[in-house]
């Protein structure tokens, strides 16, 4: 893809909700301090059975959402947990980018993720199992992920477009890529990309565990130790609830009073492995990294920070580091946001871009938890403590089941 307007694409607003904090200030502070929230999950519908055969899936859950006064109580009342997280997170980004000053017809929304309200659906099915004829009619609307598009567009008056896009654990970054294209093509002046909160039920937790994707057998009794991307003793990803929103605009079409931008989007790529399964492909990851760098017109050497996908998967982490090394990126600073946040699945790609932007803004890199014995010790890891570092060019990566790979290059706006 030839990018003729690479200097003009900016991120002008962000919003984030996670288990370690709601809002960019709380989120950034917790990231830098390495404050995690892992434990045995407590949200209704996350565990099954009764002791001693009960499940005890580990994860990081949002303690309680904080609702801005301006959000419609009527909308929130019928919104799923994913949708409530979407509304509060979009509210932050909307205010941040001052989107109220734009024409509603010139604003679009891409919600990244598919089937992200699973726990809510299971709760409903179990509640109405023996009285299906009385299931709430509103379920006919709310069971669809696109309900989040409807809710957000009603609350914020979005009149351009709103749709969902799915790419498994790359959904959040895929939404950003879609938003870029919508802005670049002139379809809208500003496009909101959201990584939706994946609300897993115990069914998904169990199957992901059985698949070997989700940990943790090894650290079942030590939740704080369980999430350890790139460490030799990792045994799978640990789930973490989150939702992220970024606003993308072209500098040339920003008609309102100056809104500071977080970064410039300089290169991006998506590519498939031609593989329906869960296993990653080094060749596929290399391809998107190289394409993104080429589009950004920068050398691998110019990348000074990588926010990797890094889930804690046995094979996924090794494959990703091989791709990074192959692309000549071994020199770049690297840390693992998921070691603190957990894996947000559909949200991860957006939330990790936000983590990158906030580190760029702070000229500081957050630590990586539990990286006691890195599988590639020679890389430039940020380990126990945050370090000062000015990011000029960052690379963020996402990978998803079904052979999807995405890569995104972000440049400091002052570059």
């Amino acid at each position: 893809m030839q990018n003729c307007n690479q200097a003009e694409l900016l991120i002008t607003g962000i919003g984030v909700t996670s288990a370690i904090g709601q809002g960019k200030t709380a989120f950034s502070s917790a990231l830098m301090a390495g404050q995690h929230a892992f434990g045995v999950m407590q949200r209704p519908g996350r565990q099954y059975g009764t002791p001693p055969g009960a499940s005890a899936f580990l994860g990081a859950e949002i303690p309680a959402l904080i609702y801005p006064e301006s959000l419609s109580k009527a909308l929130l009342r019928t919104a799923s947990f994913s949708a409530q997280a979407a509304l509060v997170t979009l509210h932050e980004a909307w205010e941040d980018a001052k989107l109220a000053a734009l024409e509603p017809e010139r604003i679009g929304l891409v919600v990244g993720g598919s089937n992200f309200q699973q726990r809510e659906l299971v709760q409903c099915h179990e509640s109405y199992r023996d009285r299906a004829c009385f299931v709430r009619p509103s379920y006919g609307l709310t069971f669809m992920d696109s309900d989040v598009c409807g809710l957000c567009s009603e609350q914020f008056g979005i009149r351009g477009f709103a749709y969902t896009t799915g790419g498994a654990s790359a959904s959040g970054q895929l939404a950003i890529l879609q938003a870029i294209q919508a802005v670049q093509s002139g379809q809208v002046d500003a496009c909101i990309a959201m990584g939706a909160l994946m609300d897993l039920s115990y069914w998904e937790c169990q199957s992901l565990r059985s698949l070997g994707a989700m940990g943790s057998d090894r650290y079942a009794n030590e939740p704080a130790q369980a999430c350890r991307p790139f460490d030799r003793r990792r045994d799978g990803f640990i789930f973490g609830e989150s939702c992220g929103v970024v606003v993308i605009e072209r500098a040339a079409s920003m008609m309102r009073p100056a809104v500071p931008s977080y970064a410039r989007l300089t290169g991006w790529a998506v590519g498939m492995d031609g593989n329906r399964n869960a296993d990653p492909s080094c060749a596929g990851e290399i391809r998107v990294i190289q394409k993104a760098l080429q589009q950004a017109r920068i050398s691998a050497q110019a990348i000074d920070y990588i926010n990797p996908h890094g889930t804690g998967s046995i094979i996924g982490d090794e494959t990703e580091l091989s791709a990074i090394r192959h692309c000549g990126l071994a020199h770049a600073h690297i840390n693992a946001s998921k070691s603190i946040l957990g894996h947000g699945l559909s949200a991860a790609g957006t939330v990790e871009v936000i983590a990158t932007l906030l580190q760029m803004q702070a000229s500081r890199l957050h630590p990586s938890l539990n990286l006691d014995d890195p599988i590639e010790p020679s890389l430039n890891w940020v380990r126990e403590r945050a370090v000062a570092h000015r990011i000029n060019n960052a690379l963020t990566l996402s990978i998803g089941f079904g052979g999807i790979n995405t890569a995104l290059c972000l440049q400091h706006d002052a570059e």
Partner: protein
Amino acid sequence: MNKDDVFNIIANHSREIIPALAAHPFQWSDQLAELGANSMDRADIIMMTLESLALRIPLTALANAKNIGELADLLHAKLQSS
């Protein structure tokens, strides 16, 4: 069960779906739409009422009710004939 009982069930479910109606003094002439219930809310309120009454009828059978009083009348009649 008399008509007042049916009316009160509708009112209670309306309060459940729309918490802002908690202190509203429901009248037989009240219209759910005017009380702030959108089409989805109205369908939910009626379905919850049908469950409370253990009535299995299609929602379309109640489409002609113009206010809560008429809805209570219709539901009461269905109860009598069920």
